[in-house]
């Protein structure tokens, strides 16, 4: 396995705690707001734009990778609503701008419930304000919780009394698990195992994850440039995982067709818009959904 293979770190592990702290950071860019900038939103600050512009200058493909992830969310929600799912827990939901889970779900099933989860206080504030204006307080809510504490996260989700755990739901973890560094003792595996225990039977778990596995040969070098930018500012980190490792995050959940594939290949027929790649592997994202039997 080369230098950019399974578990290869894009940023040093020691920086992780600083950017996942619940205390608002007013001095550095945030992952959620930079993502909003890349998607053409309006909720980012000048410092997020500055960082985003530097990323795009060195790694122009990254904007399309971010868009591919957002379009994946759209397709997964539509597909799962088509399977009868009416409850979503969107973990790492970021700044809600356009094309959010509840907006997509409302288009196809107006009774759908969504709990948004993030640990960025500004992202949570934006979600609360947006849901004040257009959400249904009985069906849409946001909680401030940390992905790394599944029991507390699930307690907060349950305490909203929005989702009914006697009915199937879908937990969405799109482009969020790659913030978890590979650590000795396989703590990420245990973390995901706990989420799989907490998720009710009949429910779904959807994930997307950055990878260096099978991508075009120039991409690992650009991902290394991204690493250096993240080191300099600092901003949250992203760790690549191989196809095997990402698939393992679904554990014993039954993958639904087409399995763990490149993000653009996951049910493209559900697309309402698209971003074009020369090849699906240029998205650098594995994507899959599993169901708990």
């Amino acid at each position, binding site marked *: 396995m080369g230098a950019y293979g399974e578990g290869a770190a894009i940023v040093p592990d020691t920086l992780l705690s600083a950017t996942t702290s619940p205390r608002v950071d*007013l001095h550095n860019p945030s992952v959620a707001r930079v993502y909003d900038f890349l998607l053409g939103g309006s909720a980012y600050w000048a410092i997020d734009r500055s960082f985003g512009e530097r990323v795009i*200058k060195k790694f122009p493909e990254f904007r399309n990778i971010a868009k591919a992830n957002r379009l994946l969310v759209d397709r997964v929600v539509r597909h799962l609503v088509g399977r009868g799912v009416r409850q979503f827990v969107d973990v790492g939901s970021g700044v809600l701008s356009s094309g959010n889970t509840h907006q997509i779900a409302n288009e196809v099933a107006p009774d759908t419930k969504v709990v948004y989860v993030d640990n960025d206080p500004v992202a949570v*504030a934006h979600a609360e304000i947006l849901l004040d204006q257009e959400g249904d307080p009985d069906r849409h809510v946001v909680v401030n919780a940390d992905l790394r504490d599944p029991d507390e996260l699930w307690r907060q989700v349950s305490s909203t009394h929005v989702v009914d755990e006697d009915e199937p739901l879908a937990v969405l973890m799109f482009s969020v698990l790659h913030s978890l560094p590979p650590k000795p003792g396989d703590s990420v595996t245990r973390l995901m195992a706990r989420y799989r225990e907490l998720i009710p039977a009949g429910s779904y778990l959807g994930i997307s994850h950055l990878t260096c596995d099978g991508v075009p040969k120039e991409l690992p070098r650009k991902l290394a440039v991204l690493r250096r930018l993240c080191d300099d500012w600092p901003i949250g980190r992203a760790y690549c995982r191989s196809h095997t490792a990402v698939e393992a995050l679904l554990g014993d959940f039954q993958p639904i067709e087409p399995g763990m594939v490149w993000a653009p290949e996951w049910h493209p027929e559900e697309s309402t818009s698209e971003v074009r790649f020369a090849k699906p592997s240029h998205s650098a994202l594995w994507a899959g959904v599993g169901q708990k039997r």
Partner: protein
Amino acid sequence: MTIRVNEDATARRQQLGRLLRRAREAVRPKLTQEAVAAALGCRQAKINKIETKLVGISRSELEKLIDLYDVSESEAAELRKLAELDQQDGPARTKFGNTLSAFGELGEVEPEASEIRCWHSERLPGPLQSEMYRLRQHEPLLADGNEVTRVLRELTARTKVFTVPNPPLYRVILSESSLHRMPGGRTTQMVADQTGHLLRLMDRYERLELRILTFDADIPYVDSDFQHLMFDDSVHCEFVYIEYPGGSRKCKNAYELAQCREHWAALSAVALDVADSREFLNGLTSQGRPPAY
């Protein structure tokens, strides 16, 4: 219907607001917030704040709503329980509570004005503040993620002066100093963020007339900040709002109003026009950008 009471105080207020909104929306024929406000003898904004958990509700107001919404006995009992617990929790305690309250009152009246004339020297008025600027002002409070939401909600509420139907003509003259004095200390990122925000506001809202008074303007002196609100209706009286450490005052007598008009005319005579002000802000925004990577 069973209503489960949350252990968390903030979540309890959230729950109370949500249940009251649901009860109002269940009434047939439909009850608007305006109609409820009329029944309670208060403003629509207060009903909105009760439902969006920004303020608590007194026992007498709650009983009026219980009667108005014709809720069941079990629902009424739980609403009373939640309200009682909320009263025990008390209002959010903040060092800047009085200041935030003053902004809140002004924020309620501003959208109803026909014209607002503002002069600001070192501190930008609420409706013009970027998120970063506003949060930096309250940074000592922000260890609690709920405070971030509250501060950004206040900011959103202040921008209603631009977005209400028939918004007032909002004429503001900013001293050049207000674009250099930044909360927590001047940084190029802060200046770029705030001046970029002002330019976006100018693009978006045609009723906003923003002009800059530069340091080299030919004016013998400038007076302290004021906001002069004028009304077309018979409900409100024209007044000038001024703030000072620990308090605020409304000036209504003819002499004070005349003095403010006179000073406004003096400032207006030497301030940059809108186009030149825009160019001035563009200059600051580009200076604020860090050098290319």
